[in-house]
């Protein structure tokens, strides 16, 4: 894809974004375009300004237009999905390709695996990442091992499981979680999380067309809040590659998905204090771009990793461990993990629970002053 290398992997300016007004979980109201999160320059080839759920919708539409075997399904998908990601698809592609399933996550995952195993392209939706666990066995024991266990006779690479994740301000225990680390611990699965509409469309298309099963996690706080000028054309953002969102020399900051807008603010605070931050979006967590992070830390000597999921056993631990192995002599301070607390997601204390810009700013100062 022409766009892939040329434009989408280059650093881009990122706009400011208020943390307020997260989308409602069910039956959201009219989209409110708060501000642009990733502001790609308008393309001469044509772009459309859209939010993240529309970009996901565009990605699925493109996938279904270009692949007659592609189907999309899940709970409430037929009418457009509770987050409106599948709006209009049933009208365009028919009820045999865009359909509701019974309310049963293990069924959705298993059905998708079987459909993909016969050569089809299955785009399954699990309505909330918090509810993916009934499908855990199908994803971890089945989808992940389908190719390996058959000696490459069979595979279910056509499967992509989309699922909204992350905090929105009022989701409590069961509409807030970011369970990416459960899946990064499973060889055979790819795990992807976009930070904005341009990547969402390109990464989703790459995931759908990937020859491996992909867990595609969508930060639901951004569904309406993040707005980009999204290229109209069919493009992919390469899986397994991170991106330097802003270059810097003093400290490397790594994040993914919705957390990047928090890290943007933390970087701004740091830069106001004369600290030059290099911010990296991993985009794909499995397999993750070790080389990109390693090169950056070799340069800066300092690393802060941040995610919303709980600290212990989170993916930041993996990054931290790898970087101390790869960059031991370059490190000037202990790697800092700024993550959710090791508690269930506490509704009323969400503001205290989340790894916000201030907590990250403190971690940045700590590695600078070490």
């Amino acid at each position, binding site marked *: 894809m022409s766009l892939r290398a040329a434009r989408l992997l280059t650093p881009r300016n990122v706009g400011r974004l208020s943390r307020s007004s997260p989308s409602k979980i069910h039956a959201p109201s009219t989209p409110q375009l708060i501000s642009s999160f990733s502001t790609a320059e308008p393309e001469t080839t044509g772009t459309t300004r859209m939010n993240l759920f529309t970009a996901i919708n565009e990605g699925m539409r493109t996938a279904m237009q270009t692949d007659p075997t592609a189907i999309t399904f899940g709970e409430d998908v037929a009418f457009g999905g509770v987050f409106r990601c599948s709006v209009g698809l049933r009208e365009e592609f028919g009820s045999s390709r865009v359909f509701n399933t019974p309310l049963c996550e293990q069924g959705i995952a*298993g059905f998708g695996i*079987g459909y993909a195993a016969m050569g089809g392209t299955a785009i399954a939706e699990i309505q909330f990442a918090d509810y993916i666990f009934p499908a855990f066995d199908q994803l971890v024991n089945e989808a992940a091992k389908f190719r390996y266990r058959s000696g490459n006779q069979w595979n279910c*690479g056509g499967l992509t499981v989309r699922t909204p994740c992350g905090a929105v301000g009022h989701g409590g225990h069961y509409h807030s979680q970011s369970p990416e680390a459960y899946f990064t611990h499973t060889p055979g699965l790819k795990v992807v999380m976009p930070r904005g509409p341009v990547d969402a469309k390109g990464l989703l298309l790459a995931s759908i067309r990937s020859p491996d099963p992909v867990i595609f996690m969508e930060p639901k706080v951004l569904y309406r809040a993040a707005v980009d000028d999204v290229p109209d054309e069919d493009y992919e953002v390469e899986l397994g590659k991170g991106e330097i969102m802003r270059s810097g020399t003093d400290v490397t900051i790594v994040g993914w998905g919705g957390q990047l807008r928090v890290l943007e603010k933390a970087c701004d605070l740091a830069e106001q204090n004369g600290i030059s931050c290099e911010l990296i979006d991993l985009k794909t967590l499995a397999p993750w771009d070790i080389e990109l992070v390693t090169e950056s830390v070799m340069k800066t000597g300092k690393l802060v990793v941040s995610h919303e999921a709980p600290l212990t056993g989170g993916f930041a631990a993996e990054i931290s461990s790898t970087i101390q192995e790869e960059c031991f002599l370059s490190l000037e301070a202990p790697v800092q993990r700024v993550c959710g607390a090791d508690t269930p997601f506490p509704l009323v204390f969400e503001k205290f629970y989340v790894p916000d810009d201030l907590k990250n700013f403190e971690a940045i100062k700590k590695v600078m002053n070490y």
Partner: protein
Amino acid sequence: MLRAASRLSSHRAARAILTESSSTSSASALLFSKSAPLTSTSSSTAVIRSFSTLHDISAVDITSDSRIYAGDVPLPLTTDCTIFEADDVPTGKYPVFRVMDENGVIRDSSKGPEYIDPNLTEEHAVKMFRTMARLNVMDNIFLNAQRQGRISFYMSSQGEEAVHIGSASALDNKDVIFAQYRETGVLMWRGFTMSQFADQCFSNSGDLGKGRQMPVHYGSRALNFHTISSPLTTQLPQAAGSAYAMKMEALRNGKDRAEGVTVCYFGDGAASEGDFHAAMNIAATMNCPIIFFCRNNGFAISTPVADQYRGDGIASRAKGYGMASIRVDGNDLFAVNAATARAKELALSENRPVLIETMSYRVGHHSTSDDSTRYRSTEEIKKWDTEDNPIDRFRRYCETRGWLDEETVQTIRDEEKINVLQALESAEKKGPPELSTMFDDVYKEKTPELERQEAKLLEHVAKYPERYSGPI
């Protein structure tokens, strides 16, 4: 790279099996079993006989219109091959369809041609018998090979041969199979060779699965047989997706009928898993052309069906899903065949699922890690094996037709024994797959991290060659 030295002189091993002297082995791995490791699995040898001689079944009341199957509940018998619609399931116990009785006699001769392919030839009948015989011979020899420590694990199919061959012979290789693990005969009927079975059980370089799974986890793309995985019931919702894919492919090609039906096998225990419900419901709502094929053999490892469900078996559940169903005598090859053929036609012509429940009995242990005499009596096993042996039943029919006699059966048995032993001997000589293949197929393309880990491992192995050479 690494090659295993042969564990035993193959000639000595072959002789040991031919004379059926079972050496004591400590290699009985505790995989699949939830109980303590076994010190001995020898009790089965006394119980399970070879099919070479017919047993006297004069004590069996073949005229009764009901029979006891799994669950010790008398079930009504019927000679009508009716696939009941959800709304038409009879009240009372779900009847069991059978064509021939324990004596191999067609129960309702007026209906014979309707249930037995009128074009059934001697050649085809003998092929079915031979495949059941081959399965039984392979089971006995592989069980012995496991006891001798030559393979790590095995699961046999004794008592369920007619379920396998009866259903498989009603299908063709365009039909897609998702199996549990005790459907070896289905794969055998489709053309999996004796060498392919042996190579898989030995995890050698000839194994299509590249030595990555425990014995009996067969799979074959060429034969449209999805690779078996150990977790129970996971294949059911997958099979629904497969059936939907076949239906959609037909639609794209302007046809209203899929190229083949998807057939998904599972056991009575597996039907308690959540995936059973998931699959039934999604297959019904999505109108999937699929046969859900439950082998009710009375046991899930040690758990009898009385501890597994309180309803009338598995077939009765179809009603709740709005699904057509039929219950069949699993030891009656003709009944299984007729029901499968009819279910296939219904599923394909009307694009909807059908549930088949076959009633039989697991004569063998759950696996080589199990000693079933701990939870059921030897007498019970013997009674089933003697009085309702599926191979015997079909043999009696064939003998009446003049297609088989004692001498022919003996010849078949001897030939198959030689085939199995040759495959075993040859499989044992092949070494394991190359170590470097360990990192293949996790993803379609090896990731940089996997390449790094592979290089690190190979470097380590090269540093300590003695530790890592020899048998794996």
